[in-house]
C-alpha cells in the first residue's frame, strides 16, 4: 500500500523528467511566433482573439510553424508569459493590449534579437531607452528599441464613418454610442469620431456618448449581461434612439443584443461583427473596423521580409487599415447619397483635409471635459 503509492509517485517523477529532457530538442525551421494575451481569455472577440488570428495568418503566410499562445489569467502573468517565449528562443513575440506595454518594452530592451509586436501599444521611452515614467516620450523609440513595433490605430476615422451611417439611417435624429470605458484611449477615439461623423451629416442630431465603467475592468469589456442591461437602460430613457454603436468588447456584444431586442440598428466595432457575432447579425448594420488581424499578420510578414520598422505604427485609413465593414444584408439602407458622404469623408481623411476629431499630438482624440 505505502510502497504502491511511493512507486506510483516515483514513476510519475521519472516519466515527467524524462519527457522534459527529451522534448527540449528538435528545432523546427522558420520563425517561431508566440503571442501573449492581455488579462482575459483568448476568445474575447476582441484584441486577444484577432491578434491571435493575425498571428496565425501571418505565420501561415510566411510558411512558419503554427504560432503558440500564452493566455494571461492575472496581471503578473503577462511578464512571465513573455519571458517564457524568450526562454524558448521564439523569434517573434506578439503582446496584446496596452497593459502589456511596460513588460514588452522591458523584454524588448533585454532581448534585442527578438522582434516584438505590441498590439494597441505605443512605446514611450525616455532618452536612455527605458520606459518614460513621466510619459513625455522624448526618446526615439524606433532608434532605441529597433526590435519593437507598437501598433495603434486612428479609431476616430472608422468611428467618423460609422457616425455618418448612423446619422443617415436614423429616423429620429437621436443616436447613441456605448463605450466600455473612457480610460482606454481607443474607446473615446471611436466614440468622438462617431459623434463628429454624425454631426457632419446633420448638425442638429443628438448623440449620446456613454461609458459603462470608469476603469478598464470586467464590467467594461467582459460582461455581456451588464452591457445588455446598460443599453436597455439607456434605451428606456431615450426611447427615440434608433442607432446604437458599441465600443465595449464583449460587454458591447451585450449592447448589440439590446439593440436587436429593441429592434433598432446596431453598429459593431473592431471587426466585422456581422460575421463575428452571428447572433446579432440581423441588427448589425455595419461595423467600424480596424484591421487588427491583417495588421498583426502584416507585421509578422515584415519581420520575415526584413522590412520590419520599429517605433509606433499609427495605422489609419490612408493604408486602409481602418474603415467600414461591408453592409451585408443592410446594403439597402445605404442610399447613394449616404455612400457619397462616406466616400467623400474617406477621401478627405486620406487627403488629410478632414480630422475625424480634435486630434492630439499622438494621433488620438482630445477628450472634452
Amino acid at each position, binding site marked *: 500500500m505505502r510502497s504502491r503509492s511511493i512507486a506510483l509517485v516515483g514513476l510519475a517523477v521519472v516519466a515527467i523528467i524524462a519527457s522534459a529532457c527529451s522534448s527540449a530538442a528538435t528545432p523546427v525551421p522558420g520563425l517561431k511566433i508566440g503571442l501573449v494575451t492581455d488579462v482575459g481569455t483568448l476568445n474575447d472577440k476582441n484584441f486577444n482573439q484577432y491578434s491571435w488570428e493575425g498571428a496565425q495568418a501571418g505565420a501561415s503566410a510566411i510558411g512558419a510553424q503554427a504560432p503558440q499562445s500564452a493566455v494571461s489569467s492575472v496581471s*503578473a502573468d503577462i511578464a512571465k508569459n513573455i519571458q517564457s*517565449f524568450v526562454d524558448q528562443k521564439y523569434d517573434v513575440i506578439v503582446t496584446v493590449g496596452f497593459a502589456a506595454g511596460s513588460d514588452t518594452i522591458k523584454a524588448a530592451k533585454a532581448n534585442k534579437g527578438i522582434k516584438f509586436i505590441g498590439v494597441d501599444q505605443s512605446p514611450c521611452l525616455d532618452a536612455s531607452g527605458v520606459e518614460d*515614467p513621466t510619459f513625455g516620450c522624448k526618446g526615439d523609440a524606433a532608434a532605441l528599441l529597433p526590435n519593437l513595433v507598437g501598433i495603434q490605430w486612428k479609431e476616430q476615422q472608422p468611428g467618423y464613418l460609422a457616425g455618418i451611417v448612423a446619422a443617415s439611417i436614423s429616423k429620429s435624429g437621436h443616436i447613441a454610442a456605448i463605450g466600455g470605458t473612457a*480610460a482606454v484611449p481607443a474607446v473615446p477615439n471611436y466614440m468622438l469620431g462617431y459623434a463628429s461623423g454624425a454631426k457632419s451629416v446633420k448638425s442638429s442630431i443628438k448623440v449620446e456618448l456613454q461609458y459603462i465603467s470608469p476603469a*478598464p475592468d470586467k464590467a467594461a469589456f467582459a460582461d455581456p449581461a451588464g452591457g445588455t442591461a446598460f443599453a436597455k437602460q439607456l434605451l428606456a430613457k431615450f426611447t427615440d434612439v434608433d442607432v446604437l454603436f458599441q465600443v465595449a468588447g464583449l460587454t458591447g456584444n451585450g449592447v448589440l443584443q439590446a439593440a436587436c431586442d429593441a429592434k433598432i440598428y446596431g453598429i459593431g466595432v473592431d471587426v466585422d461583427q456581422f460575421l463575428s457575432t452571428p447572433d446579432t447579425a440581423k441588427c448589425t448594420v455595419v461595423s467600424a473596423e480596424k484591421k487588427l488581424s491583417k495588421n498583426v499578420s502584416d507585421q509578422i510578414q515584415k519581420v520575415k521580409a526584413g522590412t520590419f520598422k520599429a517605433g509606433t505604427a499609427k495605422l489609419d485609413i490612408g493604408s486602409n487599415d481602418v474603415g467600414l465593414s461591408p453592409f451585408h444584408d443592410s446594403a439597402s439602407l445605404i442610399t447613394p447619397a449616404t455612400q457619397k458622404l462616406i466616400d467623400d469623408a474617406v477621401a478627405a481623411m486620406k487627403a488629410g483635409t478632414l480630422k475625424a476629431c480634435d486630434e492630439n499630438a499622438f494621433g488620438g482624440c482630445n477628450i472634452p471635459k
Partner: protein
Amino acid sequence: MRVDLRTPLARARSLIALPAGAILLAFIVGAVVMLVSSPLVTGHFDPSLPLRTYAAIVEGSLLSVNALVDTVVAATPLILVGLAVGLGFKAGLFNIGGQGQFLMGAVASAAAGAALAHESPIVAITLSVLAGVLAGAAYGFIPGLLKAYTGAHEVVTTIMLNYVGIQVISYLITGPLRAQGASFARSPDVQNAELPAFLNVGTGHEAHIGILVILVVVPAISWLLYRSTTGFEIRTVGANPDAARYAGMQPRRLVILSLTVGGMLAGLAGAIEILGVSGYMPAAYATNVGFDAITVALLGRATPGGIFFSGLLLGALRAGAPLMQVKAGVPVQMIDLLQGIILFFLTADVIVRFVFRVRAGHAKLDELQTVTRSYGSGTGKP
C-alpha cells in the same frame, strides 16, 4: 493517544500523507481531463498530452535556476496571503478577504511608491512597504472589528469587502492616483521604491529582495503562534472561544488582532508584488491570490511550515504555467482546475484514504470547526 507513541518520522509521514495523496489524485484527474480534451488542444487524441503538460510544468518551475527563481517569486505572495488565511483558521476565522487586503496593500504601496519615487531607495522602499502593510492591516481590521463588536460573520464581510476593494481601486487609479500623461489608467511608476533584484541571472528571471521577507515572516508567525502567549491565546480562541474567555483572554481583541495581522501579511504581499514585480498599479489589476491562498492554507493545514511548502508547490504550478502553455498548448486555466481538485480531495479525504489506504491521523483542521460554527448562531459574537 496513538499519535504520541509514534516516531517523529512516522508523524511527519502521517502529516503529509493526505496532502500528498490529494495532490497525486488531483494530477491524475487533471490528466484524465487533458486526455479527454486533447483533441481540442492538439487536433487529435493525444495520449502523451498530460505527460507533456506535467513535464513542462516541472521544467518551468524546477529544472533550472531560472525556473526555481520564478517559483520562489510566484510563491512569495501565496505564502504571505496563505499565512494570513492560516492565521485566521488558527483563530477560528475564515478570512476570505486575502484578495481585498492584498489589493489594498498593493494600491497603497503603489501610491506611496509614486509619491516617494525620487526619494532615496531605502526611504522610498521602507515607507512604501509600510504603506502597503498598513493598508492591508486596516482592511483586515474592518471585518475584525465588525466580527468582534457586531457579530457580522467574517466570511460574508470579507467577500463583500473584496468586491468593495475592486471599486476603491477603480476609483483611486482612474481618479486621484492616475498617472498624468499615461495613455491608460494606471498609477505612476514607483521608480526608486522598486525592490532591487538581489539575484539576477541575466535572463529576465529576477529574484527581487522581497522574497527574502519569507525567511523572516514564516518563522515569525510560527514563533507567534507556538512560542508566544499571544499565539496561545489566538489558538485558544480558535479552538474554544468560551474557554478563552474563561481563561481571562479577550476574544474580541484576539479576533481583531488575528484579522489585522492577517491583513498586514496580505498587504505586505500586495506591496511586494507592486514594488518588486509590476512597478505600478493598473486600474484593472487582476490577481487570484486570495483564493489561491485558501488552497495554500488548507494544504498546509494552517501551520506556518505547512503553508511555506504548500505555497512553494502552488508557486511552482503558477511558475510552470507559462511553459505549459508554450510547450503543451494547454490553457492556463488547467492550473485553476488542478487547484480546485486538490482542494476537493483534501476535503474529501475519505477518497484519498480509500485509494491509498492511508491510515493517517485525523486530517480535518480542528480550528475549522469553529469557522462555520458561528455562521448561524445568531450574532456569532465572540
